[in-house]
C-alpha cells in the first residue's frame, strides 16, 4: 500500500516537472524581457526609499535604513513575482491560451498541471530573489551566508504566494477580477508587513492581524533575521505559518481548479 502511494506521488511530481519544463522553456524564449524587472525594480526601491528617504532617517533597530529595508525588498519581490505569475500567468494559460486543455488531453492530470504551475511560480520568485541577492551582495547590504540561506527560503515562500495566487486564479470569473486580490491583498501586504517600518510601531490589533493574515510578515521577519544575522522568537511562528500555508493553499488551489475545469 505504502509503495503504491509512493509510486503515485512520484508520477505526480514527474508530471508536474513536465508542466514546469514547459513554462521554463517559454520563459527562456523571452529571457531578456523576463529578466529585466527582477534586476531593475529592487534597484529603484533601494535607490528611492533606501538611500533617498533613508537619508532623513536615523538607524532603525540599530540598522541603517537601507539595510533595514533590503531584506524586505527581497521578500516583497518574491511575493510579487510568484503571485503575479500564478494569478495572471496561470489565468492566461488556462483561459486565453487553452494550454491546460492541451495538457489535459495528454497523460498529465489536473493535479500535475496545478502543481507544476505553483512550482513554476515559486521558480519565478526564486529568480527574483537570486537577482536581488546579487545586487545586495555587490552593494554590501546583506550578510553573504544569510543570503545563501535566504535563497531556499525564497523558493518555499514562492510556493506559498503561488498557491495563494492560484486559488484566486481558480475562482476568478474573468482576468479583470484578479485585480481585487492584487490591490486589496497584495498591495496592503507590501506596505504593512514590517517591510518599510517595524511591525511594533503599529497598534497591537493591527500587529495581530498582520501576523494572522499577511504571510509576507513572516517571510520578511525570517529573511531580515538571516540577512542581518539576528534571531527572533517569532521565527517558530513564522516557519509554521509558511509551511502550513504552503500545504493548505496548494491543496486548495488544486481542488478549486479541479472543480472549475473537470466538468
Amino acid at each position, binding site marked *: 500500500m505504502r509503495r503504491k502511494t509512493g509510486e503515485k506521488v512520484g508520477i505526480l511530481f514527474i508530471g508536474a516537472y513536465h508542466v514546469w519544463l514547459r513554462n521554463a522553456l517559454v520563459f527562456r524564449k*523571452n529571457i531578456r524581457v523576463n529578466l529585466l524587472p527582477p534586476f531593475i525594480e529592487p534597484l529603484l526601491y533601494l535607490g528611492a526609499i533606501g538611500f533617498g528617504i533613508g537619508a532623513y532617517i536615523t538607524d532603525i533597530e540599530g540598522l541603517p535604513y537601507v539595510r533595514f529595508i533590503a531584506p524586505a525588498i527581497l521578500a516583497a519581490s518574491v511575493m510579487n513575482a510568484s503571485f503575479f505569475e500564478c494569478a495572471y500567468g496561470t489565468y492566461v494559460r488556462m483561459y486565453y491560451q487553452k494550454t491546460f486543455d*492541451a495538457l489535459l*488531453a495528454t497523460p498529465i492530470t489536473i493535479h500535475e498541471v496545478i502543481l507544476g504551475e505553483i512550482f513554476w511560480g515559486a521558480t519565478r520568485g526564486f529568480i527574483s530573489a537570486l537577482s536581488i541577492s546579487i545586487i545586495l551582495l555587490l552593494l554590501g547590504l546583506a550578510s553573504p551566508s544569510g543570503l545563501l540561506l535566504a535563497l531556499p527560503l525564497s523558493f518555499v515562500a514562492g510556493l506559498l504566494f503561488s498557491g495563494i495566487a492560484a486559488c484566486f486564479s481558480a475562482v476568478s470569473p474573468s482576468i479583470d477580477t484578479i485585480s481585487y486580490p492584487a490591490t486589496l491583498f497584495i498591495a496592503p501586504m507590501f506596505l504593512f508587513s514590517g517591510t518599510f517600518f517595524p511591525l511594533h510601531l503599529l497598534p497591537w490589533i493591527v500587529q495581530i492581524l498582520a501576523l494572522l493574515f499577511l504571510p509576507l510578515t513572516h517571510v520578511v521577519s525570517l529573511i531580515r533575521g538571516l540577512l542581518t544575522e539576528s534571531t527572533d522568537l517569532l521565527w517558530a511562528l513564522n516557519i509554521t505559518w509558511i509551511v502550513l500555508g504552503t500545504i493548505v493553499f496548494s491543496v486548495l488551489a488544486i481542488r478549486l481548479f479541479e472543480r472549475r475545469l473537470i466538468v
Partner: protein
Amino acid sequence: MTMSDSPLPNRVIEATGLIKRYRELTAVNGITFSVTKGELFGFLGPNGAGKTTTMKMVQCVSPRSGGALKIFGEDPEFSGRSIRKRIGVVPQETNLDPDLSVFDNLVMYARFFDISKSDAEKRALSLLEFFELQAKKDTIIEKLSGGMKRRLLLARSLMNNPDLLILDEPTIGLDPQARHHIWEKLLKLRAEGHTIVLTTHYLDEAARLCDRLVIMDHGNILVEGSPDELVRTYIGMDIVETDNTDEVTRYLNLMDISFEIGGETIQIRTNKPRELADILMDKFQGIRVITRPGSLEDVFLMLTGRRIRE
C-alpha cells in the same frame, strides 16, 4: 451489430447508454455506439447536439454521469492516464503554444507523454514532412495561417503514435484548399490503419471521409450507418428542387405530391425526377428546376429539421 459483455479485441470504443448531465442540462442522453479498429467514424449533428461532450468523455477529460464506457477495453474512470497515453486529440479550438516555434510545440508536447527528447525530435521532423510544414519548422505559431495551424495540431496529435485519433471539427473555418489538404491527409492516415473518430457539421466532409457515422441531436443518436446506407434508407430517391412560389405549392398540393420547404426553395423527393421536372418547367415559365440524387445533407435536414440552432 450486437453488444457483447466482454469487449472484442478490436473494439476501440464501446459506449452503452452513455449519459452526461450538467446541472440543469442533459448534454448526452444515453447513447450507445461502438468504434472498431481501423475505422473512420463520424459524429454529425447541429451545434449543441452533444458531439463535443461525447468526445470529452472518450478523451477521459470529462467524467460521465451514467452508462458504460470502455476505451481499449478500459474504463476512463479508473484508467484515464493509460488511455490518454494512447489517444491523440485535435481540439476544436487551437491550443498551440503561441510563444514557441512549430518544432518546439511538437517536441514539448511529446514530453508530456514521457517520450525522450531525441525520439520526439525525430518524430517531429517526420511529421512536419508528412504535413508539408518543414519550411515552417522554426516559425512562431502566430505567423501561421489557419490551415497550417490545423495541420500542426494534427501533427501534434500524432506525436505519441496514438491508437485512436480524435478530431473535433478538424476543418472548421478553413478555406476549401486547406480543407481538401486535411482530407487528403486524413484518408492517408486511415489507409495506414489508424482508428479515427471525428465530429463535424460539414456534411460533405462526413460523406467523403467516414466509413460509418451517427447523426446526433439534443443528446441522442438519431441514426447510424455508412453515408451511402443512410442516404439509401432515408431518402432513397432523387430530389427535385424548384423555386418556392405560391403557384408551385398550390399545384403540388393539388396533385397530392409531398414536398418540403426550405427558405426560397421547394424540395420534392421522387422516383421520377425527369418527368416531374418536365411538368414543372412546362407549367411554370421561368422557374428554376434542378434534379439531383439525394445526399447526406437531405438526411441530416430531414432528421434534425431546418430550425436554426444557436
